[in-house]
């Protein structure tokens, strides 16, 4: 067991809020999980390699160190051609073990690729981890889609770090459906001029689920762009913490960062923590943040109930609509369908 500080806020605030980081007692990994399926794409080569020692992801250094203790290796995907079909990796965790997988994705100059990762532990109660280091070369565009479906007993730690060169782009779609403790951390190093990120997160947490997120857009390159959109639903006694930081570092002239969060609170005992941070050390930049947190509008609820829907059905429809809105950004139809199936089964 290691006592870790996870999802550390880049600029801390009052300790009494308990939002600067999250303490977690992490079990040492027993090993790595074998994918339940891999669909490779043309132009992608897969090799065993070493995970970068200087990796800087969103979940934080404590997590990397803890994984280093048991496994420094990684599956390395070198993508040297445009891929028409996505690379798909799926994990189905069937037992309550403690597993960790690390990946390196190297996308060559001016290439375009999509990687779809599916993590599923619908019945098991283990602790599972994934860490992705993505290197996006000049003019390249990498899209990563991660679907996470976890039981009320499972814990998942999911860490991503990107290095983005000139005019490179990173698109991320993450969908989280449940989990006792789900930690998501993404840190983007936009050092290349004109590089961009577009991150979208949809979540639906129920029961006593807990979601803990730390997104960081680190703008060092000129004219860099970041867009972060988070849309989620909390039901029952679920909890969520969202930390989103746009860091406009001196020298990133012409950079722009936008962050938007919508949270739908459906049952009284839920708890939502949000801390959207903008750090700015440059004049010629723009940073924007907006958040709306609240319940369903009474008028909407009244209208739908007057049309014969039960309150529960209205809630489910609105929750689903939010996840669908994020899932609509996924181009792979099979994956979209899978999200739909997860949602069909979700509250049964």
């Amino acid at each position, binding site marked *: 067991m290691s006592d870790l500080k996870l999802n550390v806020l880049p600029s801390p605030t009052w300790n009494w809020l308990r939002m600067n980081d999250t303490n977690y007692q992490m079990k040492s990994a027993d090993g790595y999980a074998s994918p339940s399926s891999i669909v490779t794409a043309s132009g992608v080569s897969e090799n065993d390699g070493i995970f970068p020692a200087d990796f800087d992801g969103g979940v934080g250094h404590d997590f990397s160190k803890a994984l280093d203790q048991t496994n420094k290796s990684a599956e390395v995907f070198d993508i040297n051609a445009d891929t028409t079909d996505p690379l798909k990796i799926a994990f189905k965790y069937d037992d309550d073990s403690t597993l960790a997988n690390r990946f390196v994705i190297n996308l060559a100059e001016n290439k375009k690729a999509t990687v779809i990762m599916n993590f599923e532990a619908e019945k098991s109660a283990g602790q599972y981890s994934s860490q992705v280091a993505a290197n996006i070369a000049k003019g390249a565009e990498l899209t990563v889609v991660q679907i996470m479906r976890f039981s009320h007993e499972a814990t998942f730690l999911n860490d991503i770090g990107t290095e983005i060169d000139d005019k490179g782009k990173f698109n991320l779609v993450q969908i989280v459906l449940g989990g006792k403790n789900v930690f998501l951390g993404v840190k983007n190093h936009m050092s290349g001029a004109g590089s961009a990120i577009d991150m979208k997160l949809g979540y639906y947490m129920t029961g006593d689920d807990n979601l803990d997120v730390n997104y960081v857009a680190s703008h060092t390159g000129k004219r860099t762009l970041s867009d972060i959109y988070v849309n989620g639903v909390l039901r029952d006694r679920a909890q969520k913490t969202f930390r989103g930081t746009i860091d406009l570092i001196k020298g990133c002239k012409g950079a722009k960062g936008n962050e938007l969060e919508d949270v739908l609170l459906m049952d009284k005992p839920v708890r939502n923590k949000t801390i*959207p*941070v903008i750090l700015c050390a440059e004049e010629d*930049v723009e940073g924007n943040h907006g958040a709306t*947190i609240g319940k369903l509008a009474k008028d909407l609820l009244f209208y739908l109930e007057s049309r014969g829907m039960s309150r529960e059905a209205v809630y489910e429809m609105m929750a689903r609509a939010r996840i669908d809105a994020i899932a609509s950004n996924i181009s792979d139809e099979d994956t979209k369908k899978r999200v739909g199936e997860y949602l069909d089964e979700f509250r049964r």
Partner: protein
Amino acid sequence: MKEKTQVADIDRSMYDFRYSEDDAYKVDEGLTPAIVEQISKEKNDPEWMHDFRLKSLEIYNQIPVPNWGPSIEGLDMDNIVTYVRPKDNKMQNDWNNVPTDIKDTFEKLGIPQAERKSLAGVGAQYDSELVYHNVKDSVAEKGVVYTDIESALHGPYADMIKDHFMKLVPPTDHKFAALHGAVWSGGSFVYVPKGVHLDFPLQSYFRLNAKGAGQFEHTLIIVDDDAYLHFIEGCSAPKYNVANLHAGCVELYVGKNATLRYSTIENWSKNMYNLNTKRAKVEEGGKVEWISGSFGSHVSYLYPESVLAGKGSRSEFTSVTFAGKGQNLDTGCKVVHAAPDTSSYVNTRSISKDGGISTFRSAVVISEKAAGSKSSVSCQSLMLDDISRSDTIPAMDIRTSDADVGHEAKIGRISDEVVFYLMSRGMSEEDARALIVSGFADNVGKELPLEYAVEMNNLIQLEMKGAIG
């Protein structure tokens, strides 16, 4: 060659005069039980206050300095004099009897003129002691109490002071609240009885003249049910090359359906560590309105807090912060919604220039008991050059589904398009930029009485210069 348009720093010359404090009574530098005992003796504290001070000192020694805000490494308590009593000090209620140096100081700052014009009462603190307090007869006749807090400790309101003093801001709150509890001196006590509506504001002005000293005034205001009060505080100090410290404490109790507007124009000198604590508790249907302009200080930690304790209570927080060269101003607010149907509105502006650092920090907490509550937070920051810094760190902790919370933040520079538009209407670029910056800070200016809005504009003095080549 295009020369960048410059926004000049605030002209502080009108505040940078000083008088010798050689004849003043002072305690030794540093913070020890003996010094706290000495202050307590000087103040003729009742026994409970004497014990309270010593307990606070113990707490101070146990609490670490904050690990999240601007550095306060330049503040060494071993070099701070925590109590300075001006010579010939005796609290006066006739302006003519105030010692000449002190009178000159406040005349230069315009305090008596302000009183003559439009105030219901005035208090003036010089270093650690109140030197003048006066309240208009018509106001006193309504039962309004406005006095120095030391007098109140021994008079008919002694029990009221004991029941409320540092109950909202306990010494355990943070290190500098504990420091305040140990060495506080001066400040005002205001009581507005039930149903009394004061048409004119009360004002306190705090002046720290002594080099290397601290000012620790305590302001306690109780606005009873259905009453109304506007209270204004101003503060300034001459600049020295050693650190000065301000660790005041403001506790506001707002009764049922009462309203308290608390306005502050803070213009401490740029060697000042301003570690001030302000908190209001608002009962059912009551409202607190904070208006805050922060212009001075070397380092500021300032976050007025509203505790919305009664059903339907409200808070509004409107502020502007201007951080120039050598300044690190960490300002913002906290709102705790602790009762149903409460609402809060936060509207702030920050300006950073010439290497100044401005941080907006806020916390909105909506508790399980606060069903039906609403909160809206808007913070905007303006960067006037690329050597400055501006951060926004707003936190929201929502513990019930029956709440509506909105937040928006924006950081940017002066829009070229807007400057272009104004220039196309015949303005020079300098005038256009000055107009935009003044308008940006207008959220506070328009909430202040006219005289104070003018003072604020004088403070900003955004003198634009630069040639467009």
